[in-house]
């Protein structure tokens, strides 16, 4: 396949396999999918299905064993620099204040890196504005350990977005939060995405989260991870939390739940 054929897509996986060093069994198998610019994609599946491996492939942190990963029309050969990442653990640096944590990517990514000292005031302004949009105004100069888990996760998402990446990678970012905080942060993410329209790949095992946020949900099987199903979520936007209580929403969640249930059963019989 030529690059021109893949042009309208932002991310393209073509028959991608990955086995970790020294392992015979593949962690993910035969992944073919494409993601459009600005698309919100969620990947769901049972734990240990290679969702995180998928993320490492898409960001170039791991090269595929077989197949090709194309991002922005170019084959991925090393870590991409257009990505923001956030994980289940906020991984903030405890010796930096919230604002300094958020500024960290700007100290590393070009061209900001070269301008950082000179334009520091401007960057601080940007970071403050971003923290304000996620409701962390007034906490800029606090240290991470002075914030609650939900606040730390907000700061972590700000850190992932401060350098205006084209792609945001989220690996179960809300997994460790309580239900109320989680739903609050869904809305924070929804608003950020609506405003800035970066491409999102959200790895999660929460079906409601996936259906509420995403345009497209992919279901992955247990190890070795394969894409088993693709489901477009046609619920109208902007979506409000109320949507999650409608029949249409429950219907989709239910349908996907059954598919995952089937995967689990087949695997349980297999060995």
């Amino acid at each position: 396949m030529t690059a021109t054929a893949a042009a309208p897509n932002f991310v393209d996986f073509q028959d991608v396999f990955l086995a970790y060093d020294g392992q015979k069994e593949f962690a993910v198998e035969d992944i073919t999918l494409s993601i459009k610019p600005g698309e919100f994609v969620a990947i769901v599946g049972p734990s240990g299905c290679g969702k995180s491996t998928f993320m490492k492939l898409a960001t170039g942190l791991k090269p595929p064993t077989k197949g090709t990963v194309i991002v922005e029309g170019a084959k991925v050969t090393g870590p991409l620099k257009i990505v923001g990442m956030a994980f289940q653990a906020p991984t903030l640096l405890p010796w930096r204040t919230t604002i300094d944590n958020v500024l960290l990517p700007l100290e590393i990514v070009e061209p900001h890196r070269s301008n950082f000292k000179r334009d520091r005031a401007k960057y601080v302004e940007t970071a403050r504005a971003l923290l304000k949009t996620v409701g962390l105004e007034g906490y800029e100069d606090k240290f991470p350990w002075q914030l609650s888990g939900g606040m730390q996760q907000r700061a972590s998402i700000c850190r992932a977005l401060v350098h205006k990446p084209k792609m945001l990678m989220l690996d179960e970012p809300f997994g460790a939060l309580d239900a109320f905080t989680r739903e609050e942060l869904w809305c924070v993410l929804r608003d950020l995405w609506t405003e800035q329209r970066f491409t999102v790949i959200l790895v999660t095992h929460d079906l409601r989260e996936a259906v509420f946020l995403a345009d497209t949900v992919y279901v992955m099987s247990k190890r070795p991870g394969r894409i088993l199903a693709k489901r477009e979520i046609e619920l109208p936007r902007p979506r409000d939390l109320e949507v999650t209580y409608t029949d249409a929403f429950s219907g989709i969640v239910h349908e996907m739940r059954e598919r995952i249930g089937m995967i689990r059963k087949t695997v349980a019989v297999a060995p």
Partner: protein
Amino acid sequence: MTHDQQMRMEKWAPWLLLTAILLVWQAICTIFKVSDFIFPSPYTIAQALVEYAKPIAHHAWQTFWTTMIGFAIGVVVGLSLGVAVGMSRFVYRGLYPLLVAFNAIPKVAFVPILVVWFGIGSVPAILTAFLISFFPIVVNVATGLATLAPELEDVLRSLGATKSDILFKVGLPRSLPFFFASLKVSITLAFVGTVVSETVASNDGIGYLMMSAGSSMKMPLVFAGLFVIGAMAMAMYEFFAVLERRMTGWAHRGAHAN
């Protein structure tokens, strides 16, 4: 007892204990009439401290500065080796077992070799202090670097961070608490190294003073030497403990946080 009072008690606890020990010690010596040649009482030790204040100060200064130089070399070498071991799996595999083996050798065994190479005096003392004090620093710095969260490394690498970016932005700051903790251990070990070397191969320093006082049966002076070493090591330990709290307060947040 209020919280404040309790805090004040805790602060004075070591001094109270020390006073109690000295009192019991004095009582035993007085009641059983223990000879000063065998086990001098605190009072006679204090007398010796005053009587020999000048030579003690001279030898203490000698011990102090040789220890500090040896310790400083230990910090530089320990930090560099720690970074190398913590950053590279290859260096870790190759160097670490050798370091462990080296650390198991009693450092007093090196003194005769050092004397052959450098003669009697300050140099063997400095080198012994260095040899004994760098190992804990290596281990701690390497541990701090090696236990970096893989997710954090992914975040940085996906931003295009180089190895040195990761080291300076995250690795080193993160291992600072480990580093300062190891300084406290190392400084006391450095005193051990210096004094051990001085007792064998020097005409200066507290170690030499104790040896010569012992051979001329001035037991109170020997004990006075012990006191001076203990006091110096304790003072330096406290100094690094304060430095540690100043530099890495974020890692030692107590009850007042959260």
